[in-house]
C-alpha cells in the first residue's frame, strides 16, 4: 500500500477536498528513508481522549511533555513538537515569538550528518509539522492511522494497539478515481441571430419602456417587482397560497418555469397519446391549448405550476385563483382533498412529491432522489443527510445517507439552564449579527442557528434505544450525530411547532419565538466540517466527502421567504413574507403589501426558505427594480 501511496503523493496534496501544490521535500526525504512504515513508532504513542475525542501524542499516557532544551511545557507562545525520527520533544515558536528549539534540533541533526529530523509532530494535536519549511505538512498514511485510532479507540476499553481496524471508513483511494464535478462559468452574449430570435419570440419581463404610456395604474404597479400577485383564498387554502408564494419566488424554480423548461402545452401532448395533430412534433400553442381543453383527465402538477408562473409573471396584478392547481393537487392527494385547513408543510411535501411522481412516470427510469437529477422539485430542494451511529463500547461507526427535501427542526426546549445553552452555542458567531447574538445569549431566545447546532450535535442514545452494533453483535449504547452531506440549492427549514404528546394524548402548538438570520452559513453543519471537528486537519479522504460540498461559496445561503402561522393548532392563518430585491413583501392571500424587515424578524416563522447565495440575484434584481 505504501508504495502506491508514494506514487500518488508526489505532487498534489488534497486536504479535505482542496489541493495544496507544495510537497515538502523534507517529508518526501523522510518517507524515502523509512520505506516500510515511517510512523510505526508514533502509532503506539497515539492517545485518544474518549469518545471521539482529539488525538494527542504521548509516550506514556500520563507523560507531561517538556521541551528538551528549555523545559518549557508548551502553551504560552510556543507549541511542543516531537521529532518523528528520534522522539525528542522540543518547543517551537514562530519568528519573533522566541527561539525555536525544534528548528535548532533539526539543524543540529543535519550538521552532524544525520538529517531527516525536520519532520515533527504536534504533541497535542497529532498533526505533522516541518521544522525546516516551518509549515504544517500532511501525510496520507499518518493521517489515516490517526483517524483509524480515533474511530477505533473511542472508549477507554479498547487500547489503540489491540484494535483490528473496526471501521467503515474506506481506505484511501487514488485521487483520480474521485470524480470532480465542477461546471465552469462561461459568459454568454447572444450573437445577432440569437438576439433577433429572442426579440421575435419573447417579451421582456421589464417591458416598462414600451408600455409606459399606458394608464397610470400600471405605472404604479411597475414599481413593484415582477411576479408579485395575490392568490385568492379558495376556502381555507391559505396553507397552499403561502407555500405557493414561496415557490413562485424560489429563484431556481422560477428560472426553470419561466425559461419554458416545462411547457404545459407540450407536456399535455406528450402524455396524451391519442391526441390530435401531434405528428410532426412541432409545438403549436394554439392547437395544443385546444388539445388541453379536450383532455383534462391527465393531471400534472408541473403543468399547473407552469400555468401559474405564466399568470403570476404576466403584467396582470389582479389576484389570481389557483383553482386548477388545487384541483390537480386534490387528485394527487385524495386524502387531503377538502375545504378544511391543512398543514402548509404537509402540502409542501405532498406537492413536491406530486411533481416528482409525474416525471417519474414519464421517464420510467430509475433515479436516485438524493442526486437531485430526477425532476425539478428534487433538483432544487433535495439534499442528503448523513447519520453516524457510533457504538460506545467498541467504536464501530455505521453511516447512513438519506435524501431529504427539507430539514425539520425541533424548537429548543424551554431555556432556563445556562449550562445547556453553552453547549449549543458553538457556531453562532459565524452567522448572527453581533447584537442578536448577545441578546440571545442573555435572554435565551431560540435561534435557527441554535436549532441547527442541536440538530448536528452528537447525541447519546439512551439505554432504552440501544443500537445493534455489527462489531459487538449485540445492542449497545451509542452516539448519534447528524450532518449534511449535500446541501440543496434551496434549503427549506420546517420548525416543529405542532407538538404531539403521546402520554397526554393531545397535540398543541408551540408559539415560542424563533430568531432567524437573513444570511446563513451552512458550512458548520456539513459532513466535512463535522468530521474535521472530530478528526482534526487530515488529508484522509473522508467517506463521501465531496469537493463541491466543501466549497465555501455554496454553503452561504440567503433567506428569501418565510411562511408564518398565527393562531391555534386547529384554526389559524398562514402568511408569507417574500424578500425581493432586498425589500420585504407580505403576501396574505390576495393582499400584498410592502413591509419593514423588523416585522419579518418579529414574525413567528413556521417554514424558512433559504437559497444558495450565488443563486440569489440580489444585485441584478435591484437593477430590474430600479
Amino acid at each position, binding site marked *: 500500500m505504501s508504495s502506491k501511496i508514494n506514487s500518488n503523493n508526489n505532487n498534489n496534496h488534497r486536504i479535505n477536498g482542496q489541493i495544496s501544490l507544495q510537497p515538502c521535500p523534507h517529508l518526501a526525504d523522510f518517507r524515502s528513508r523509512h520505506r516500510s512504515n515511517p510512523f510505526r513508532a508514533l502509532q503506539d504513542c497515539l492517545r485518544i481522549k474518549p469518545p471521539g475525542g482529539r488525538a494527542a501524542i504521548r509516550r506514556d499516557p500520563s507523560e507531561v511533555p517538556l521541551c528538551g532544551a528549555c523545559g518549557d511545557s508548551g502553551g504560552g507562545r510556543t507549541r511542543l513538537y516531537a521529532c518523528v525520527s528520534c522522539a525528542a520533544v522540543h518547543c517551537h515558536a*514562530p519568528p519573533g515569538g522566541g527561539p525555536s528549539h525544534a528548528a535548532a534540533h533539526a539543524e543540529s541533526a543535519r550538521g552532524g550528518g544525520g538529517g531527516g529530523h525536520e519532520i515533527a509532530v504536534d504533541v497535542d494535536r497529532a498533526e505533522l509539522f516541518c521544522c525546516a519549511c516551518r509549515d504544517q505538512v500532511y501525510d496520507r498514511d499518518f493521517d489515516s492511522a490517526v483517524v483509524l485510532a480515533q474511530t477505533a479507540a473511542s472508549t477507554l476499553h479498547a487500547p489503540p494497539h489491540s484494535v483490528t481496524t473496526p471501521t467503515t471508513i474506506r481506505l484511501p483511494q487514488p485521487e483520480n478515481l474521485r470524480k470532480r464535478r465542477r461546471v465552469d462559468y462561461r459568459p454568454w452574449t447572444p450573437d445577432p441571430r440569437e438576439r433577433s430570435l429572442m426579440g421575435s419570440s419573447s417579451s421582456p419581463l421589464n417591458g416598462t419602456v414600451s408600455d409606459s404610456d399606458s394608464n397610470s395604474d400600471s405605472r404604479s404597479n411597475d414599481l413593484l417587482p415582477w411576479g408579485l400577485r395575490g392568490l385568492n383564498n379558495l376556502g381555507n387554502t391559505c396553507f397552499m397560497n403561502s407555500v405557493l408564494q414561496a415557490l413562485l419566488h424560489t429563484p431556481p424554480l422560477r428560472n426553470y418555469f419561466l425559461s419554458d423548461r416545462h411547457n404545459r402545452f407540450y407536456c399535455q401532448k406528450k402524455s396524451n397519446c391519442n391526441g390530435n395533430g401531434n405528428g410532426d412534433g412541432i409545438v403549436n400553442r394554439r392547437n395544443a391549448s385546444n388539445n388541453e381543453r379536450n383532455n383534462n383527465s391527465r393531471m400534472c402538477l408541473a403543468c399547473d405550476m407552469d400555468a401559474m408562473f405564466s399568470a403570476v409573471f404576466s403584467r396582470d396584478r389582479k389576484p389570481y385563483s389557483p383553482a386548477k392547481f388545487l384541483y390537480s393537487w386534490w387528485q394527487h392527494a385524495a386524502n387531503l382533498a377538502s375545504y378544511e385547513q391543512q398543514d402548509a408543510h404537509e402540502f409542501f411535501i405532498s406537492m413536491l412529491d406530486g411533481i416528482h411522481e409525474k416525471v417519474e412516470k414519464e421517464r420510467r427510469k430509475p433515479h436516485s432522489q438524493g442526486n437531485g437529477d430526477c425532476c425539478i422539485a428534487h433538483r432544487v430542494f433535495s439534499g442528503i443527510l448523513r447519520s453516524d451511529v457510533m457504538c460506545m463500547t467498541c467504536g464501530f461507526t455505521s453511516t447512513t445517507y438519506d435524501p431529504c427535501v427539507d430539514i425539520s427542526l425541533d424548537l429548543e426546549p424551554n431555556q432556563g439552564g445556562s449550562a445547556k445553552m453553552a453547549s449549543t*452555542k458553538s457556531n453562532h*458567531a459565524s452567522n448572527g449579527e453581533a447584537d442578536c447574538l448577545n441578546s440571545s445569549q442573555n435572554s435565551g431566545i431560540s435561534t435557527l442557528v441554535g436549532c441547527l447546532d442541536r440538530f448536528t450535535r452528537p447525541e447519546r442514545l439512551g439505554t432504552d434505544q440501544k443500537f445493534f452494533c455489527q462489531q459487538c453483535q449485540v445492542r449497545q449504547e451509542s452516539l448519534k450525530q447528524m450532518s449534511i452531506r449535500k446541501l440543496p440549492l434551496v434549503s427549506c427549514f420546517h420548525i416543529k411547532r405542532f407538538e404531539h404528546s403521546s402520554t397526554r394524548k393531545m397535540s398543541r402548538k408551540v408559539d415560542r419565538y424563533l430568531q432567524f438570520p437573513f444570511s446563513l452559513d451552512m458550512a458548520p453543519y456539513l459532513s466535512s466540517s463535522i468530521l474535521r471537528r472530530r478528526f482534526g486537519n487530515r488529508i484522509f479522504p473522508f467517506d463521501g466527502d465531496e469537493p463541491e460540498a466543501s466549497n465555501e461559496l455554496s454553503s452561504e445561503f440567503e433567506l428569501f421567504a418565510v411562511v408564518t402561522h398565527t393562531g391555534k393548532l386547529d384554526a389559524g392563518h398562514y402568511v408569507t413574507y417574500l424578500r425581493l430585491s432586498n425589500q420585504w413583501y407580505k403576501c396574505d392571500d390576495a393582499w400584498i403589501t410592502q413591509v419593514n424587515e423588523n416585522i419579518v424578524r418579529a414574525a413567528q416563522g413556521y417554514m424558512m426558505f433559504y437559497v444558495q447565495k450565488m443563486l440569489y440575484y440580489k444585485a441584478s434584481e435591484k437593477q430590474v427594480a430600479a
Partner: protein
Amino acid sequence: MRPSVNRPPTPDVHENQEKEPTLQETINIKLIESGEKERLMELLRERLVECGWKDEMKAICRAFIKKKGRNNVTVDDLVHVITPKGRASVPDSIKAELLQRIRKFLVSAAL
C-alpha cells in the same frame, strides 16, 4: 564564631533554576497532570468561537494569504501575523472567566 567559612558554596543561580521549577511551572504541571488544562483549553476554544474571535482570526489569515499568494505562506507566517492581534482581541470577560477557573483550581489543589 565564623560559621560562614564552613558553609558549602552557594550554588549559582542557573543551576538552582534547573533543579527547582518556578511557581509558574509547578502550577502548569499540576494543571496538565490533573487534566484541568485540557478542560480549560476546551472551554477557551468554545468561548473564542462563540464570541467571533475565531472568525476574526480566520478573516485576517485569509486576507494575508490573499495578499501574499497561497503558495508563499507558511503556518509560521500566519501565526506570526495574527499573534499580536489575537492576543489583543480576546474579550476581557473570557480572560476573567478563565482566571476565575484557574483560581478555583488552585484553591482546590492546595487543600
